[in-house]
C-alpha cells in the first residue's frame, strides 16, 4: 500500500482479429487493466458476440444440471489448485459436445430408472395386497366357523366390464375388488361406498406396515389394502367408479389359494430381478457421474473464463478497416510494460501475423483509484473504503489506520486478559488461514471475522499493551514493580494508630506525609488504586485528560496530512494554528498542571476547565493564575486563533481570484490538474463553499475534541463490567470454603468464561470497534479526506464470482 493512489493512464489496445481472444485471456489471467464500455448504446442482444455468450450459457446450464446430479449422488468434486486457462475456440466445440452427450446419457438413465422404480412399486403393492387379502379371507372363515364357507366355486368368467373376478352363488354374482388406497382417504372412501351401495358391499381393510413412496409426488405415504366384496353387476360398476375416483391402485384378486400362491411366487422372482436391474443401473449412473466429476471443476472454470472474455469482447469496438478490435482500458502507468508483454504473448498464442499493441491516450476523465494491498493491509484498506473510496491521487488514510485504529480500540478496550484471548483467537485464524480459505464456509458472520483476522490480531496485541498500562487483567491489577504508596509510612509517622484503623471504616492516604508516596509506578497505573474506594476519582481524571491529549494529537495529524491533499496547500496553516492555539494550549495546561502542582499545594490546584472557559470569555481576574503571564499569553493565543478564521474563509477565493487575474501559481508540480482548470470562476460559489468549510472546521474542532471523550467513557464501561462480573460471579465461587466449594467452582468458572467471552469480548469488542471506526471516519478523516472516488476494478478471472459457488454446488 502506498501513500496515495497510483497514477493511471487511459490506453487504447489494438487487437488483431485473429488473436483478440488470446490477448484478452492473457489480460484476464494477469488482472492488470479495467475495460471501458465502448458501446454503451447497444443493447446486450445486439452485441457482436451474443451467440458465443449464448453457447457459454447453454454449457453453464448443462454443467449446473450435472453438478446437481453429482451432488445428489454425494460424490465429491476434486478441485485443483491451479485453474485451467480459457480454452481456445476450437476446443470449445469439443467441450460442448462432451457436455451434451453427458446430459443425454444422464437423462436417459434417469428415465429408465424411473420406469423401473414404478414397476417395482406396482409389484410390491400387489404382493402386499395378496398377502393381506389372504389374511382377510382366512380370518373370515375362522370367524364364521359354523357359517357358510367360501366354497371353491368355479369362476363363471372374468367379467371384462368390471375387471373383477366373480363367483356365482345363489344366482347372484359375488365380486371382489382389491387394491391399495392412501391411508388418508380410507374413511371417506368407506363412507362413500356405504352411501352409494347401500350396504351391498363389504369393505375390509388393513394398513400396510411398510410405507411406500408415491412416485408422482415423491412423498412417502402409508397405504391401506382393501378388499371389497359386493353382490351384483350394477354395484360392481359403481364400486369401480368410486375406486377410480379415489385413485386406488387395483390389482386382480386371485380365485383361490393355489392361484394366490403361484402369483406370489412369480411376483417374488420378478421383484428380485427388478432389484438387481435397479442396482446395476445405480452403479452405472454412479460410474458416469464419477467420471464426469473428475473434469467438472476444469469445465466450470473454463466456461466461466470463456464467458468473461466474450463479455469483454462485447465492450470493444471495431475500427474503420473492420479488421482490428479496439479496446479502451484504464491501466496503471507502472504496469504498462506488463501490459505490452501480455499482448505480445497473446498475439503469439493466437498466431497473428501482426501483433497487437498499446497506445496511451490523454484523457480528461477522472481515472479510478488503485491502491495495491497485500493480505495484511487488505483488511484495513476495506474499512477505509467502507467510508468511501479515495479520490484519484488523494492521500489515503489506510497506512496510518493500520496502527491508529487498533490503538484507539485498545484504549477503549484495555484489558490484559481479554487482549490475550483476542490475540490468541486471531493468531489461530492467521495460522490456519490456508485451510480456512479452502473450506470456503458460507457462514457470513464467520467470514466477516475471518477477513478481519489481521485487524483483530493487531487490536488484541495493542489491548495487551494498554491492559498493562491500565493495570487491568480480568479486573485485577498486577504488582510487578511494587507500589509507590506505602501504608506503613502512615503508621510510622503517627498519622494512624491501630485504634484509628479499628474505629474508621475508610481512611485516606495523605501524599503530604513523608514516605507515603515515593514516586510514580514506572509502568502503568499503580496497583494500589485497584484496592482503593476512590479509584474512579483518580482514574476518571486521568482517562479524560488522556482522551483529550490523544484526540488533539490525532486531529493535528489529520490536519497535517491535508497538506498533501488540498488544492491550495498553504491553507493547512490557519487550520493547524487554530487547532493548536486553542486545543494545543489545553493540552499544555493539562501537562503543566500535572508537572507543577503536587500534594503540598493541592489546595490551590486550579480547575483546567474553568481556566479554559475563562480564556474564551477573557475573564481571568478572579482566579489565581496557573503561571505568571497566563492572561497575556491566553489573549495572544486567542487573537491568533480568531485571526485564522478570516484567513481560512477568504484565503482560497482570493487566491483563485488573483490567479485568474494572471498571477503566478503557487501550485506544486503534481499530476492532478482537474480542479485547477477552472475557467468559469464563480467567486460567490467558491466563497460560499469556503464559508461552509470554515464554519464546519471551527465548530468541528470543539465538538470533535469532546467526541474523543468516548475513549474515556468506553474504557470506564469495560472496566466496570469486568469488575462486576468478577465480583458477582467468580468471587462467589471463591467464597465457599468447603469441599463443595471446590466442585462448585467448576460451573462458576464456566459461567464466568461464557459471560466474559459473550459480553466482554464480543459485545464490548464490537462496541469499541464501532467507536474507534467512528473516530477515524469522522473526527480524523474529515480533516483531510474526501472519499468520493471510484475504485479500480481490473478484469481478473480470479475476482469473478462463480454462479455454482454461490449455489453451493462447487
Amino acid at each position, binding site marked *: 500500500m502506498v501513500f496515495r493512489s497510483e497514477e493511471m493512464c487511459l490506453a487504447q489496445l489494438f487487437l488483431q482479429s485473429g488473436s483478440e481472444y488470446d490477448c484478452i485471456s492473457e489480460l484476464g489471467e494477469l488482472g492488470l487493466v479495467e475495460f471501458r464500455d465502448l458501446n454503451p448504446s447497444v443493447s446486450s442482444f445486439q452485441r457482436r458476440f451474443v451467440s458465443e455468450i449464448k453457447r457459454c450459457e447453454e454449457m453453464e446450464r448443462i454443467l449446473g444440471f450435472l453438478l446437481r446430479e453429482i451432488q445428489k449422488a454425494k460424490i465429491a468434486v476434486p478441485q485443483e489448485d491451479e485453474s485451467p486457462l480459457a480454452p481456445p475456440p476450437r476446443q470449445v466445440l469439443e467441450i460442448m459436445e462432451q457436455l451434451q452427450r453427458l446430459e443425454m446419457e444422464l437423462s436417459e438413465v434417469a428415465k429408465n430408472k424411473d420406469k423401473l422404480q414404478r414397476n417395482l412399486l406396482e409389484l410390491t403393492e400387489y404382493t402386499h395386497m395378496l398377502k393381506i387379502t389372504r389374511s382377510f379371507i382366512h380370518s373370515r372363515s375362522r370367524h364364521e366357523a359354523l357359517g357358510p364357507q367360501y366354497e371353491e366355486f368355479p369362476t363363471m368368467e372374468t367379467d371384462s366390464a368390471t375387471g373383477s373376478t366373480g363367483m356365482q352363488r345363489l344366482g347372484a354374482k359375488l365380486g371382489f375388488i382389491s387394491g391399495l388406497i392412501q391411508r388418508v382417504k380410507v374413511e371417506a372412501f368407506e363412507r362413500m361406498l356405504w352411501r352409494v351401495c347401500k350396504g351391498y358391499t363389504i369393505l375390509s381393510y388393513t394398513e400396510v406396515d411398510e410405507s411406500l413412496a408415491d412416485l408422482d409426488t415423491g412423498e412417502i405415504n402409508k397405504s391401506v389394502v382393501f378388499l371389497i366384496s359386493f353382490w351384483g353387476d350394477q354395484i360392481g360398476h359403481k364400486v369401480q367408479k368410486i375406486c377410480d375416483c379415489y385413485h386406488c391402485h387395483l390389482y386382480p384378486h386371485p380365485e383361490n389359494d393355489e392361484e394366490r400362491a403361484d402369483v406370489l411366487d412369480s411376483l417374488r422372482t420378478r421383484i428380485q430381478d427388478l432389484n438387481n436391474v435397479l442396482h446395476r443401473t445405480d452403479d452405472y449412473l454412479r460410474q458416469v457421474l464419477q467420471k464426469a466429476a473428475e473434469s467438472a471443476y476444469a469445465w466450470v472454470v473454463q466456461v466461466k473464463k470463456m464467458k468473461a472474455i466474450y463479455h469483454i469482447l462485447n465492450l470493444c469496438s471495431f475500427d474503420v478497416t473492420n479488421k482490428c478490435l479496439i479496446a479502451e482500458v484504464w491501466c496503471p502507468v507502472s504496469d504498462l510494460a506488463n501490459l505490452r508483454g501480455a499482448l505480445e504473448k497473446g498475439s503469439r498464442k493466437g498466431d497473428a501475423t501482426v501483433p497487437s499493441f498499446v497506445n496511451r491516450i490523454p484523457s480528461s476523465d477522472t481515472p479510478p483509484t488503485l491502491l495495491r494491498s497485500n493480505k495484511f493491509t487488505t483488511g484495513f484498506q476495506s474499512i477505509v473504503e467502507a467510508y468511501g473510496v479515495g479520490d484519484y491521487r488523494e492521500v489515503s488514510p489506510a497506512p496510518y489506520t493500520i496502527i491508529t485504529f487498533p490503538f484507539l480500540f485498545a484504549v477503549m478496550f484495555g484489558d490484559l486478559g481479554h487482549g490475550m484471548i483476542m490475540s490468541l483467537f486471531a493468531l489461530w485464524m492467521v495460522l490456519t488461514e490456508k485451510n480456512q480459505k479452502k473450506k470456503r464456509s458460507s457462514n457470513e458472520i464467520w467470514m466477516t471475522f475471518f477477513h478481519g483476522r489481521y485487524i483483530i490480531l493487531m487490536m488484541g496485541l495493542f489491548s495487551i499493551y494498554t491492559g498493562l*498500562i491500565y493495570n487491568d487483567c480480568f479486573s485485577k491489577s498486577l504488582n510487578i514493580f*511494587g507500589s509507590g504508596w506505602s*501504608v*506503613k509510612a502512615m503508621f510510622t509517622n503517627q498519622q494512624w494508630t491501630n485504634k484509628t484503623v479499628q474505629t474508621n471504616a475508610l481512611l485516606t492516604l495523605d501524599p503530604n506525609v513523608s514516605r507515603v508516596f515515593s514516586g510514580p509506578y514506572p509502568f502503568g497505573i499503580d496497583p494500589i488504586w485497584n484496592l482503593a474506594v476512590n479509584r474512579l476519582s*483518580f482514574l476518571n481524571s486521568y482517562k479524560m485528560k488522556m482522551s483529550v491529549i*490523544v484526540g488533539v494529537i490525532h486531529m493535528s495529524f489529520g490536519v497535517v496530512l491535508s497538506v498533501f491533499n488540498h488544492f491550495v496547500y498553504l491553507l493547512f496553516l490557519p487550520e493547524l494554528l487554530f487547532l493548536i492555539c486553542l486545543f494545543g494550549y489545553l493540552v499544555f495546561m493539562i501537562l503543566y498542571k500535572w508537572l507543577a502542582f503536587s*500534594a503540598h499545594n493541592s489546595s490551590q490546584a486550579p480547575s483546567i476547565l474553568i481556566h479554559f472557559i475563562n480564556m474564551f470569555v477573557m475573564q481571568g481576574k478572579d482566579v489565581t493564575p496557573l503561571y505568571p503571564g497566563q492572561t497575556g499569553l491566553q489573549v495572544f493565543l486567542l487573537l491568533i486563533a480568531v485571526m485564522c478564521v478570516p484567513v481560512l474563509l477568504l484565503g482560497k477565493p482570493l487566491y483563485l481570484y488573483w490567479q485568474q487575474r494572471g498571477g503566478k501559481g503557487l501550485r506544486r508540480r503534481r499530476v492532478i490538474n482537474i480542479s485547477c482548470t477552472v475557467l468559469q470562476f464563480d467567486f460567490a460559489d467558491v466563497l460560499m463553499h469556503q464559508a461552509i468549510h470554515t464554519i464546519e472546521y471551527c465548530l468541528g474542532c470543539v465538538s470533535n475534541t469532546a467526541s474523543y471523550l468516548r475513549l474515556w467513557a468506553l474504557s470506564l464501561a469495560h472496566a466496570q463490567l469486568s469488575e462486576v462480573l468478577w465480583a458477582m460471579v467468580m468471587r462467589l465461587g471463591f467464597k465457599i470454603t468447603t469441599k463443595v466449594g471446590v466442585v462448585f467452582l467448576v460451573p462458576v468458572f464456566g459461567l464466568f468464561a461464557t459471560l466474559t467471552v459473550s459480553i466482554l469480548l464480543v459485545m464490548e469488542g464490537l462496541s469499541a470497534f464501532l467507536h474507534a471506526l467512528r473516530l477515524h471516519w469522522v473526527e480524523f478523516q474529515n480533516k483531510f479526506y474526501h472519499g468520493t472516488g471510484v475504485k479500480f476494478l481490473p478484469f481478473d478471472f480470479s475476482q469473478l464470482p462463480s454462479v455454482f459457488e454461490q449455489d453451493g454446488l462447487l
Partner: protein
Amino acid sequence: MASHSLALPMICFTTLWALVGVVAPFLVPKGPNRGVIVTSLILTAVCCYLFWLIAILAQANPLFGPQLKNETIWYLQYYWE
C-alpha cells in the same frame, strides 16, 4: 513500598521507543512493503510512548491519595513493604 524515581523509567522507555521509532526504520530491508512497515514502526512508537508518558505523568505529583477500607489497610500494613 518501593521507591520509584521518575528519571530512570523516563530514560529507559524513551530510549526503547526511540529505538523502535527512529533506529528500526533504517534497518527495514528494501521491498514493496517498506513504506508500510516504516510508517507502522513510527506510529507504534509514537502511540505507545505517548500512552506510557501520559500514565506516568498523571501519577508523578498526586493531588490526593487512595482511600482504603480498614481491612485493606490492615492487610497492606503487614504484607506489603
